């Protein structure tokens, strides 16, 4: 019964989404405000209906209703409750429902909280949002219905892939989708602006909070995925340039660029056409990610079942929305009023550089991700484009951006003074340089560039602090005065500083781990010891143990450092009985130095075990940095809510533009 309610709610939601799309557009044509006013309640209704479907599916999972095929395939009665719940989105059909639920929630959010939007514009935004929902609801109902029944109902289910039974992975997809799908809001705003044929600074102000929220979620989602891959897959790496990882990284790059260009548009009424295009591109990349993961054209840990029908359907949706939006752009963009040009050395100029480098880096990732697919389609040759390609192309493009980041916030709008900014950054540069030189002097191994990479990260963190120090005039005036200014600083300034220093922390973590990681692959017998990065590990042996839904063999290592006991590591190999599958559980000891990471391998014929040991210096800074970026976004968002209260459309009296002398 519950499954039928869910199914019915999905179909109703499709109907509501179609109404939400058509009536407001019709209302715009007929100049009928009442038709346009349908959009908001329709968006809320659609959210309620999709929410019902989602809860219905979740109920089927929690109660282990194996008469629902989707539950039978992906769940098992002996599974812990958390994984019964996360099992809902651990498969293609259920995750699509979550996808649409998030889409609907963003639509309902604009419908409910977007009270300051002009009525017709809001209706158009919701109409575009409704059309995306309609397309994906149709996709779910026709090709991926999660509510299909089985008769007779099987006694028990197939279980969830054991590598997915993990807390970080339980929350990774919801955040990732909130990011992906959240960019649909920027897309809908862009298309609505193109439909109206007018755009101004207020547009950027409306679109920024939604984009920022999506960006935060995507940042956290990617970081969680990386964290999970790090400790669950037993490779000890944090990023593999896997095509599906790239599929989530590209919208992140484009979305980061969008956040910055919207800033220029909001403050200076410039870069308008570019910002619109970027909004379209960002969501297009999200759609492409969805396509790559679900069509089976790529193989990856995250890839879902191979089903050509679904792939073609999503390809059609993608073609319709991307093609439609770009056609509309080509048609209407020339009508939009252009913003002025500005001096190259200015806040605007710095943000243009940011956009240029981010989008170019994104394009390089795009080429590397899609080139193998294109080549196979054209010539039949199978190739893989791995980490070396991305390291070689992405790093040189992003490097100048990282160097430039601290300058941006210190340059004035309209016309900045590069020398003055450089002067203010002298202290930050000195600290970064001293740290780099010290590291270079005491370095025993690793590439000579690595200390400068660390210096770069320090530069970013110090640069962010410099900006705050400059804004509170720390150098001039009393501490009390600085404290007062510090409290009065807009939260957005803190948000920027936090996000930029988070980036710096992540850079330090990435460079340190990549350059100075220690690795050892050994054959150890019980009683043997191994040394790595100053730690001594005594291998005590392997013992069997029974878990809730698995059996495991657990190795015991006693870890000492300089003769003092540090910890015990217990890496294990788990055999999941229901799923007939095995996973490797790494033993990890975290400290401020870095992570000691042990993986148990197979038993060798002479009674020894193959064991892999890593020491990953400062690796946690990568995820800590992402967390700080997320937090920075949140701080900035809390500021916007206060200020977003009163944006006005710029009417006849246009905002003065710097350029054009």
């Amino acid at each position, binding site marked *: 019964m519950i499954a039928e309610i869910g199914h019915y709610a999905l179909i109703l939601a499709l109907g509501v989404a179609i109404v939400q799309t058509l009536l407001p557009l019709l209302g715009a044509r007929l100049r009928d405000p009442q038709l346009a006013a349908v959009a908001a309640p329709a968006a809320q209704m659609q959210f309620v209906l999709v929410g019902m479907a989602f809860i219905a599916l979740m109920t089927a999972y929690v109660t282990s209703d194996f008469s629902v095929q989707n539950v039978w395939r992906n769940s098992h009665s002996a599974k812990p409750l958390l994984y019964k719940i996360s099992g809902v989105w651990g498969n293609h059909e259920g995750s699509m429902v979550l996808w649409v639920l998030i889409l609907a929630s963003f639509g309902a959010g604009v419908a409910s909280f977007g009270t300051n939007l002009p009525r017709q514009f809001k209706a158009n935004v919701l109409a575009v949002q409704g059309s995306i929902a309609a397309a994906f609801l149709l996709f779910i109902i026709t090709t991926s219905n999660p509510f299909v029944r089985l008769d007779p109902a099987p006694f028990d289910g197939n279980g969830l892939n054991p590598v997915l039974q993990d807390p970080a992975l339980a929350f990774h997809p919801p955040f990732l989708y909130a990011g992906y799908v959240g960019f649909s809001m920027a897309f809908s705003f862009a298309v609505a602006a193109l439909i109206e044929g007018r755009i101004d600074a207020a547009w950027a102000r409306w679109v920024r909070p939604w984009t920022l929220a999506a960006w935060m979620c995507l940042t956290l989602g990617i970081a969680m995925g990386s964290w999970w891959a790090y400790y669950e897959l037993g490779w000890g790496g944090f990023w593999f340039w896997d095509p599906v990882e790239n599929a989530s990284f590209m919208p992140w790059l484009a979305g980061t660029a969008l956040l910055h260009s919207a800033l220029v548009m909001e403050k200076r009424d410039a870069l308008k056409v570019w910002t619109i295009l970027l909004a379209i591109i960002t969501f297009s990349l999200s759609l492409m990610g969805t396509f790559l993961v679900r069509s089976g054209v790529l193989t990856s840990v995250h890839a*879902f*079942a191979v089903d050509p029908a679904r792939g073609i359907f999503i390809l059609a949706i993608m073609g319709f929305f991307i093609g439609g939006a770009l056609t509309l752009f080509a048609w209407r963009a020339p009508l939009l009023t252009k913003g002025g*040009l500005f001096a190259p050395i200015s806040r605007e100029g710095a943000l243009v550089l940011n956009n240029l480098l981010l989008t170019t880096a994104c394009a390089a990732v795009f080429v590397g991700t899609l080139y193998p697919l294109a080549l196979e389609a054209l010539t039949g040759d199978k190739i893989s484009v791995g980490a070396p390609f991305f390291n070689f*192309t992405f790093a040189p493009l992003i490097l100048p951006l990282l160097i430039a980041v601290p300058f941006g916030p210190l340059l004035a709008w309209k016309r900045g003074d590069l020398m003055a900014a450089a002067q203010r950054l002298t202290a930050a540069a000195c600290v970064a340089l001293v740290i780099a030189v010290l590291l270079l002097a005491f370095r025993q191994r690793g590439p000579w560039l690595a200390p400068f990479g660390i210096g770069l990260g320090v530069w970013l963190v110090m640069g962010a602090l410099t900006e705050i120090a400059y804004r509170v005039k720390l150098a001039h005036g009393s501490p009390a005065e600085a404290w007062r200014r510090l409290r009065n600083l807009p939260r957005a300034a803190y948000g920027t500083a936090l996000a930029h220093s988070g980036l710096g922390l992540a850079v330090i973590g990435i460079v340190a781990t990549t350059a100075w990681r220690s690795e050892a692959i050994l054959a150890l017998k019980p009683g043997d010891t191994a040394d790595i990065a100053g730690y001594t590990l005594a291998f005590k042996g392997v013992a069997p143990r029974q878990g809730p839904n698995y059996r495991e063999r657990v190795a015991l290592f006693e870890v000492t450092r300089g003769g003092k006991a540090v910890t015990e590591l217990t890496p294990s190999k788990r055999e999941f009985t229901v799923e007939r*599958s095995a996973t490797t559980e790494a033993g990890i000891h975290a400290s401020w130095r870095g992570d000691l990471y042990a993986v148990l391998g197979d038993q060798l014929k002479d009674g020894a075990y193959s064991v892999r040991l890593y020491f990953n210096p400062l690796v946690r800074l990568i995820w800590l940095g992402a967390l700080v970026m997320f937090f920075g976004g949140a701080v900035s968002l809390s500021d916007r809510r206060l200020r977003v209260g009163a944006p006005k459309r710029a009417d006849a009296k246009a905002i003065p533009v710097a350029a054009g002398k």
Partner: protein
Amino acid sequence: MTRKQRRGILIGTCLAVLGVAVGLVLFAMRDSIVFFYSPSEVAKMQIAPGQRFRLGGLVETGSVVRGEGTTIRFTVTDRASTLPVTFTGVLPDLFREGQGVVTEGTLEPDGVFHADNVLAKHDENYMPPEVAKKLKAQGVWRGGAEAKTADPQGKMN
């Protein structure tokens, strides 16, 4: 600074960055791309020793020999040709005889493929799609292994 100059600087910077990006991509394309071959293709082709490529196929049943320390030898087959492989390290969880495998490394003059990376998926019935396609193309596909599960599959890398 005139309007024209400002525009010139903007366009110039864009072209310069794009030019660098295209250069980097083309250069990296030449050097860091890895082809995928099956044992039969390796047998037919002249692959220079030291050239990196991915070798995919099935682990031949009964071929896995554990040698000194953590070195493992096994044979990869596509049922038409075979190629011996040696690998030092820890094998993935689902590396099994008779299952699909993708290895990456170089073919050395001794005729043995020295793999430094072995990829096997986390799914019991998993067959790397490249392997499945090549086996199909050679008409030795027996089916059955291409079980469809809705679950995400193991890590390729």
